[in-house]
Structures are given as C-alpha cells and as structure tokens.
C-alpha cells in the first residue's frame, strides 16, 4: 500500500509537469499577449515585454517558469497589476470551495436518494417522478435558472438577496442553482448503478439465503452501486470547489471560477498557469484518494498488485 502511494506520488509529479508544459504551449499559441490593447504603440509594447522579461525566447521563459514553480512561486498577475497569483488563489479558493462543497453535498444527497428510490421502484411511479424531477431542473441552462431565481426570489418576492457573498442567506440561491445542475447527473448515475447491481446473482443469492431486505440493500446493493459514483467524485469535486464561472459571475461571488475564463481573455499568463497548476494538484490528489477509496469500497480490486 505504501509503495503504491509512493509510486502514485511520483506519477503525480510527472503528470503535473506534463500539464504545466501543455498549458504553457497552448497558451502561447493564442495570439496576443497580456499587454496587447487598443491604444498600445509598438514601441511601448516592446518596452513592456522587456520589462516583464517576455522578450526572451520561449524556452527560456519556460525554464524560468518551471524553476519558479518548483520553488512554489506562481508569480504576479499581468492583468491585476501588483497582485500575486498566489494571493488571488488564496482569496478566491475558500469562497469557491465553500459554495462548491455546499452545492455538492446538497446535490449528492438529493441525487443519490432520488436515484435509489427510482431504482428500487423501477418503472413504477416513484421512478418516473424521480427521473422527471431530476430532469426538469437541468433542462434549462443554469444561467437561465440563476437569472429566474434572482428575479423570483430576489426582486419579486424579496425573500433572498439577488447577489453578493456576505452571509449564509446569500449562499442559498447560488448553492441551489449549482446543486440542481449536479442533481440530475447523480440521480441517473445512481439509478443505473443500483439497477445494475440489483440484477447481479449475489443479490439474488442474498435474498435467497434469507437476508433481511434492509441488509441486502445496505451491505450488498448500495456498497457496490456506489462505485461508479466514486469514480466521478474526484474530478467532480475538483471541478466544483475550484469555482464555476456562470454561478460565480451571476451572483457576484469572489471565487476562482471567473479566472479560468478571464485569464485566457486577458492573456494573463501567470494566472492561467497558476490556476491550472492549482486545479491539477487538487485533482490529482483527489483522484489518488478516489482510487484508494476504491480498495476500501470494493475489496476485490487490488490496486497495488495489479501492476506487478
């Protein structure tokens, strides 16, 4: 087990290096640079490139970047002058994570419950209702859901704040908007997975040998059915705690989500790299956790030995 984790950590470093390199190349393929702007003369442009050492050959910039990265230095943003990327992530991440985890918890609990209910009453009315409920919410894009929610609950009824991130009350609308977009996926995945397991021989066996239905459900069905959910949990969590552009933009939430879009538009190279690396570290870490969780949930999977 320890050897396995150690090896995965080595892989993780290689993976990160690869991601950093790929992003670096891609981002320099995009025309323009952080300074290009309507009123910039070529002369000042050259001076700015020189000032920020961007007149050097790309491979040199790349090596410098990797060197800094290895020392944990993500550099300064080139759009929000005078601010470090590390600061921007430090300030934005807790907010995004707060919103994300809240929405994830809600979406998961609701989605898994609906999924289980649907599967246990396969093709009965609870199934139809659950599936329909799950679908209704995601059948319109979340910017429409968010906007309508703002209007109805904020402007019309005056129950909740339209936007801003101040108190738990302010988190309600964005959390709901985000959670409903998770709900459907979780419901369907869980429903399918439970149905899959219910058809397995060991479930029939368990029933046949007279195990209490509750125990069959808990010990055999759910434990096996949760596997596909565990698979998607890593990326899902990483994706959602690092911020979602639409919800954060719509609700004026100072999270990380907007940087993924803005940094590209602004050609804010250090911010593009910083957010990517941060996301990747998180994701690689979570994926490792997921794979470890696999061995716990399903003892038949022996990860450590598979490769030997």
């Amino acid at each position, binding site marked *: 087990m320890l050897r396995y984790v150690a090896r995965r950590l080595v892989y993780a470093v290689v993976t990160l290096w690869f991601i950093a390199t790929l992003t670096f190349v*891609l981002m320099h393929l995009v025309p323009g640079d952080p300074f290009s702007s309507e009123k910039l003369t070529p002369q000042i442009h050259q001076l700015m490139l020189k000032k920020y050492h961007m007149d050097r050959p790309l491979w040199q910039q790349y090596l410098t970047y990797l060197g800094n990265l290895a020392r944990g230095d993500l550099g300064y943003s080139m759009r929000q002058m005078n601010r470090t990327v590390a600061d921007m992530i430090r300030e934005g991440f807790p907010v995004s994570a707060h919103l994300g985890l809240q929405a994830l918890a809600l979406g998961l609990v609701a989605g898994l419950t609906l999924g289980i209910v649907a599967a246990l009453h396969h093709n009965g009315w609870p199934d139809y209702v659950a599936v329909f409920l799950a679908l209704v919410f995601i059948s319109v894009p979340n910017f429409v859901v968010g*906007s309508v929610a703002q209007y109805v609950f904020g402007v019309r009824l005056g129950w909740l704040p339209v936007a801003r991130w101040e108190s738990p009350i302010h988190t309600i609308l964005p959390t709901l908007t985000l959670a409903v977009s998770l709900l459907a996926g979780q419901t369907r995945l869980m429903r*399918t997975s439970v149905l899959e397991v219910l058809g397995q021989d060991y479930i029939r066996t368990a029933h046949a040998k007279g195990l209490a239905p509750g125990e069959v459900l808990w010990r055999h069905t759910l434990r096996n059915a949760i596997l596909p959910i565990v698979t998607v949990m890593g990326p899902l969590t990483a*994706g959602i705690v690092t911020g979602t552009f639409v919800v954060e933009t719509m609700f004026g939430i100072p999270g990380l989500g907007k940087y993924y879009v803005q940094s590209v538009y602004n050609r804010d190279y250090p911010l593009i790299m910083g957010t990517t690396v941060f996301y*990747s570290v998180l994701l690689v870490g979570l994926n490792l956790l997921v794979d470890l969780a696999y061995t716990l949930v399903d003892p038949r999977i022996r990860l450590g030995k598979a490769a030997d």
Partner: protein
Amino acid sequence: MAARLSPTPPDAVPAELFRPASQVHERAEAITRPPVGRWADAWGRFRQNRMAVAGLVVLLVVGFMAVAGPHMTPYDYRQTSLLDTDLPPSAEHWFGTDELGRDIFTRLWYGARISLLIGILAASIDLVIGVAWGGIAGYFGGVVDDVMMRIVDVLYGIPYLLIVILLVVVVGPGLWSIVIAMGSVGWVGMARLVRGQVLQIKEQEYVLAARALGVPPLKIVWRHVIPNTLGVILVNVTLTVPGAIFGEAFLSFIGLGVQDPLASLGSMIYSSYQVLRVYPHELFFPSAVLSLILLGFNFLGDGLRDALDPRERR
C-alpha cells in the same frame, strides 16, 4: 496452450457404423422458444418500455423537424427584417420573431439541427476514443493500464473549462472548433468510467470462470465485458449529447458559442433570457426544444440500458 488433444482420433470409428439420426431425436432436444438474437431480444424489451419508446419518438420528431422545419416557412434562418423585430407568435411568424426580426420557427429548427450536430459529434468522439481507451486499459491492467491512465490523468488534470476556452480562442469560435474542443477533452471521462466498470467486471466470478476455461481475452471482452458495461456506457452517451448541447450554451454565455447568423439552441436561449420579461416567447421555444431533446435522450438511454442488460434476458 498448444494443440488441443482430441479424446479419439477422427478416423477411429469406421464410417459404416454411422447412420442418419431420426428427426424425432432432434426435436426432443429442441428449445421450445425460437432462438432470438441478442439485438432482436433487446428490441423486444425496448418496445415494451413506454418511456423509452416515447423518448425515441420525441427524438425522431425533433430530428425530423431539425431537418425539415427550416424549409416549412418562406423565411431563411438568417433573413433579418428590422421593421419586424421581437414580434409575438402570429399566423405569419408561428413562433414570432427575434431581435433582428428573424423568424423564430425557422431559426429554432435550424438551431436544433446545429445543436444536435454538436451533441452527436461530441458524443461520437467520446464513445469511440473513450470506450476503446478505458476498455483496453481496464482489461489489460498492469503496465498498459498505468501508461494509458497516466495520459488520461494528464488530460483530466487540466481544467476542462480552461482548455476548451483556450482551444476555441486559438481556433476561433465556430461549430467545428466547439466540437473539437469538447471532444478532445470529453473522452477522458468516458475512459475513466469504462475502466472503472471493467476493473469491476473483470473480477466477477463469470469472467474468472471464462478465463479459467481458457476463453481468449478478446472473446471475454466481447462476450462478457462489453455487454456488461454497455449500460453504463449508453447512459453516459445519452448524458454526453445533451451535455455537449449545454456546453455550447455555456460557451454562448462567455461569448464563444456558435455565432450569428448561425443559430444553436444554446445561443438562442442565451440571447433571449435577458428579455424573458418582455418577450417570453423568444426564450420559451428554444428552451422547450432543448428540454425535449434532453428528456428524449434520457428516457432513450434508460430504455437502452434495460434492453441491453444481458441479465434481463428471458
């Protein structure tokens, strides 16, 4: 495994000892039900699932309208009329007109066509690359799995949003760049999912049994692994198509979606949700069609899952 040893050499029994078997004998061993092929069997079960059939019908209707709809009116999807902007539905414009006086009915079905195209192309890329990649990695395990999944990890490690935006900005927004961007990162999800399933199935008793009996790996994959993962794969595909359609709507939100005069359901919804309060029809029709597509794919997916599940064979 070298040459298989036959218990008796073929020429051990003299030919004259053979005589034709009576037909009665053969019937005695016949199966009471006529043999039903795998697909015919699945179709049989699919037909009985009313929701699934409804989903299929809805998709067929939307698909038909996406092809024929734009030709049912005297208008062109890009034809503007600055004097007839934002009109409510009427006999002349069945679904009304939009902010440039374009006929919404015509644009709607044209947009559905573009959206479906995006969804189906993105899903195809997912399906082909993702299933092959995940299946091979999961089944063979070991070094193969390690190498293949490291590559997936790298691709998965880059924020989806960021890479899609980077790609679309590099290539320039348009139908193809959107499909390429979504496809090039989307398949890794499928690959991970399939691998997870295969890992699980590989350890099942029946696969173990098949392997012990010496069934060649490819046959195991074909006969046991794929049929058992099909459910999850199909459910994923039916999520991918509407997912890609929604992805395009998101790209519209950040200004990188399909650009006018082209239309997509996403871009139509994006450009009308702001005027919901005054021109609700402009949001309603594209949203309704988007919902229909979504519902259709979901019910179809569930039906397919049930129909193709080998354990449900009777």
